[in-house]
Every structure is written in C-alpha cells, then in structure tokens.
C-alpha cells in the first residue's frame, strides 16, 4: 500500500494565459487506494483528470503515472451500435497486435470479465440500450479485461438512480480491495467519497486545496468552505457496523416542514 502510482507536483492549467483553472496542485496516490476529487461545478475537476490522463498538457508542474490506466467518462456514448461483448473486447487492444484480430482467448477473457460483473447475459445486446448503471459495469469489465492498474472515473454515479449508485460504489470498493486497482474518481456527492474513498482532495479554486485522509478532509467546515452550504456529519450503527455519512441541511425546506408539522 505504500507504492505511489500517481504523483503530481505544482500542477497548474490555464486555457488562456493568466486564467488559471487550478494552480500549484500536488498530491500522491498510493497503489490500491481510492482517491476522490471534489469541487463545485466549473472548478476544473474534469480538466485535472484530462491533465492526469495526458489529454491536456499541463501549463505548469508535472505528472507521473506508474501503470496502465483506463478512463471511464461521465457519459459514455458510442456512435455505432456495438454489442456489449464488442465493447468489452476493445479492452484487449494492448494485447492484440496492430494488424491482428482478437482471438478466441480474448473473447473468453471478455466474457469472463462480463460474468464477474454479473452481466454476461447482456453480451450480445446493444451497448447503447443498457441503462446508465449497466453501462458503467460494462466499462468496468472493459477496464478489467485490459489489465488496467489505475481506473479513473469522471462522476461515475452522476446519472444513476439510487440502486445503481450503490452498485457502482460497491464495485469501486471491490475493485480496489479485491483486485488491487488504484481508483481516482470525481464526485459531487461528499457522502459517496466518505463511504468509499481512502483519501480526498477538495478543489477550492485557484491554488487552494485541501488534501488528505477522506475522514479528515470531508469535515463539515471544509465542505461548507467548498460548497457554501451546511452539511451535517452523522454517525450510526447498522447490522453491527458503524457508519458515517454527510447530509445536506436545507434551510428553507427544514423550516417549512417544521411549520407544517
């Protein structure tokens, strides 16, 4: 757990000179850990991910990524009507030669990966007809079959219903704990980060950030500073396990409900 697989130092990016999206960001992510990136809309979460993935060149600083990475974008759309199996098979690109076609072994690996996520029965179905949660699992299956060591997810639960949010968060934890994958994800849900992340980084704008253990960073004060709203940290027991979660406080709605009662 002590090997650093992603490290960035004094990282900054500006689309136009002087207009910094973020500046002087530094952090180190350990192998097999889950790292959450949080910040309000427009703070540059996706830009930071693109810089880390090499899709954008940083204006300042450096990024070191030690391992094969797979990216799961926020909304995964495909132009053509590929089957689920075709989509997962594409994860074998590094194993298949430039002028070669995927072998039977590659197809078996893809099917095994789909089976692992419990969606092998969708193998011959069109990818674009699946629900958002199912698509996320297909992309997870593709990442797994590609032998990726680092999984980078851009708001993986943003378009999902509650059950699928839990399914995806559950798999994020499993892939980290059981497969040793390093996972970096952005989220708008502090309680998701608190539930699954080992470490978190709050993007407060400019060169301001708070980074560290998720339990320490995701405090009521820090989140108030990040979002400008109040959140309450709640601790409770459920089936013999202790849990913590963050609940937003809605000032007007709370007063209105109390008056109604």
């Amino acid at each position, binding site marked *: 757990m002590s090997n650093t697989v992603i490290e960035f130092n004094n990282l900054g990016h500006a689309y136009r000179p002087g207009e910094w999206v973020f500046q002087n960001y530094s952090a180190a992510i350990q192998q097999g850990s889950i790292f959450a990136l949080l910040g309000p809309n427009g703070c540059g979460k996706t830009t930071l991910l693109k810089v880390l993935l090499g899709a954008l060149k940083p204006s300042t600083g450096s990024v070191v990524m030690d391992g094969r990475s797979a*990216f799961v974008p926020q909304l995964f759309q*495909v*132009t*053509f009507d590929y089957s689920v199996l075709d989509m997962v098979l*594409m994860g074998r690109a590094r194993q298949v030669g430039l002028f070669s076609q995927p072998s039977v072994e590659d197809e078996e690996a893809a099917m095994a990966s789909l089976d692992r996520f419990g969606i092998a029965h969708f193998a011959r*179905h069109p990818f674009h007809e*699946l629900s958002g949660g199912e698509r996320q699992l297909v992309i997870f299956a593709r990442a797994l079959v590609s032998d990726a060591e680092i999984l980078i997810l851009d708001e993986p639960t943003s378009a999902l219903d509650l*059950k699928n949010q839990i*399914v995806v968060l559950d798999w994020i934890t499993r892939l980290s704990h059981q497969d040793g994958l390093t996972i970096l994800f952005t989220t708008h849900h502090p309680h998701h980060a608190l539930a699954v992340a080992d470490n978190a980084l709050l993007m407060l704008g400019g060169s301001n950030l708070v980074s560290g253990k998720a339990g320490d960073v995701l405090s009521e004060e820090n989140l108030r500073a990040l979002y400008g709203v109040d959140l309450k940290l709640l601790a409770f027991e459920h089936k013999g396990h202790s849990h913590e979660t963050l609940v937003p406080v809605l000032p007007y709605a709370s007063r209105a409900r109390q008056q109604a009662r």
Partner: protein
Amino acid sequence: MTGMSLPITTQDSNLKQGGSAAQTPRMLIPHKYAWTAPFLLAAALLLAIVASLCVGAYPMTPFHAARVLLHLLWPFGHGLAQFNLKEITVMKIIRPPRVLLAALAGMGLGISGTALQGMMRNPLVGPDIVGVTSGAAFGGVVAITLDLPPAGIIVLAFVGGLLAMACTFGLAKLAHGGNNSMILILAGVFIGALFLALVGLVEFYGNVFRIRDWIIGSFVNADWTKVASIAIPTLFGGAVLMALRWRMNLLSLGDMDAKQLGVNVSVLRWTVIAVVSLIVSAQVAVSGIVAWVGLVIPHCARMLVGPDHRRLLPTAGLMGALFVLGLDDLTRSIVHGGLPVGSLTAIVGTPTVCFLLWKSQGKGWGRE
C-alpha cells in the same frame, strides 16, 4: 408522518436482482447471419460478374459468353474461328475490363466510405462529403489539362485527394474541433466546395469536353490499363484496411477513449486517411466522380451485419462492388454504350440516404 422506507440491498450487486435490465425485454442484435453474409455476397458478386459479361448492346447467354472467354484465355486453342468478330471484340476488349473496373470502383468506394465513417464517428460521412473526391478530381483535371499519361492522372489525383483530406483535418484543428466529427464534416464540406470551384476554373481554361466526359463518372472507356491502375491501389489499400478492421472499432470510440485503450490514434488515423485517399483517387482517376456510393453502401452493410468493422468492411466492399456493377449493367442495358453511372448513383443514392435517415431516427445517428 412516518416516511416510507425502501429496502436497499447492497450485499449482491448483480443487476439481475432488480435492475432495469431484468425487467425490460431487449431485442437481440439482429445480425444472426452476420458472419456468413460476406461469403454469400462474394458468391453473389461472382455470379453478378458472369451476368454482367452477358448483358449489353450485344447480349449473350452465360454459356456462350463463358465459351468465348475460355477460348480467349486458353493460349493453345485454335477454336476462335467459330466465333464472330463482334463476339471476340466484346469479350476481349469491351466487357471484361468494364465489368472489373465497375466492381473494383464500387468495392473501393464501399470500403473507403466505411473506414471514413468509422474514423470520423459519423454515419453521414463519405469520400465526397469530406472533400477527398473533389481534391482527387482537381488533381485529375490538372493532369488532363497538362496532357499527362494515365499514371500521371492517378498521381495528381492522389496528391489532390490527400491534400484535400489534410486541409479538412487542418481546418478542423484550427477551429479546435479536431476531435469533433461535426466540425470535421463542416470543414470537409468547405474544402470540397473549394476544390470543386478549382475544378470549374481549370475546366474553364482547359479542354472542357474531355474534362466533362471524364469527371461525370463513367466506365465507358474502360481498358486493361485502367483496370490495372485501379486494381493495384484498391487491392493494396483494401488489404491494409482489412488488416486494421478491428482497430477501426477502437478508432470509432473517439480519441480519448482509444488512447486510453493503448491505440496510437494519430498514426492510425493518418494511415486510414492516406489509404482512403489512395483508393478514392485511383477510382476518380480512372472513372471520374461516382458519387454517393461511399455514403450509402456502409449504411446498407451496417444494417445487414452490424457495426463491427471485422464484418462490416468486407461486406461494404462486396456490396459496393455489386451496387456499382448492377447500376452500370442497367445503364448498358438502357442505352447503347451506357449512361454515365456517376449520375445514376447520385439519383439512386439520394433517396436511399433520405430513407435511411428517416428509418434510423433514434437509433444513434449524431450521438457524440
């Protein structure tokens, strides 16, 4: 008031338990015979070639055509005397090169259109849309005006096609839309219009009748030199694209995703651009502009075998060959010598694209 509580199970994340997938019946991809389609189409193409040798101003039965052809091919035979001069001329000089030329042109356009649509992630793309056809036509008319030999026409057509594609991608990149298929298409339309204007300009100052006859798209003056001129680039380019056919699937996911999967996107893209330019330029050089084939045929092939380029590319090549060959046979049957097939492909292609556009609403066209 007590709120209703909904039980949430987190122990098993298998979506079979309660996800929408278990409840919503879904249609399986209707490509049951996808793997057999290319073989059936190959057989159909062979039959079509035989049939094409028989139709025209001087019709023959397949048996008689085969007999003439066998006697012509057999170097030690002395039985040619039993056939009249018309039969020998038709089977030696006129029909075989024309049939092969039409089939190779259609094959090249079908493959090129499919590769372009996959690469640009847009099913509304074809060689004529992104400017490569106009660029090749410009190179061709310059070569004709300069009285260059057939090889010179091909070389200048290739340079023109490649230049047009480079301009299209360069313009899209300048507009910060190198990865946006709509910007690429718009850039292609602009560049195509520019090269067509240049064609008009050269036509104005050059041999207008010769250029017009060439550019309108026809196989009337087919000969064995033209067959060789189109066969070598088409078969070579087709072989390269066939070898890369699975990589085309990866390219169609978009730059960022393909890069993350380990694909060298720029090398692969420029390889496809160069190969497509070569194939289309060879076609334009020997038979002028044969429009719409590269746009329509990939759609029909996709409806038959699905979007996987491993099956789609050979299917589109064979369907393209059948389509152009069939239309050329039709023109030969209607008018002595044949109408310009380029006009006919546009007349048939336009309503076909309109129909496909209407039919495919909500099935994914234009998704980014």
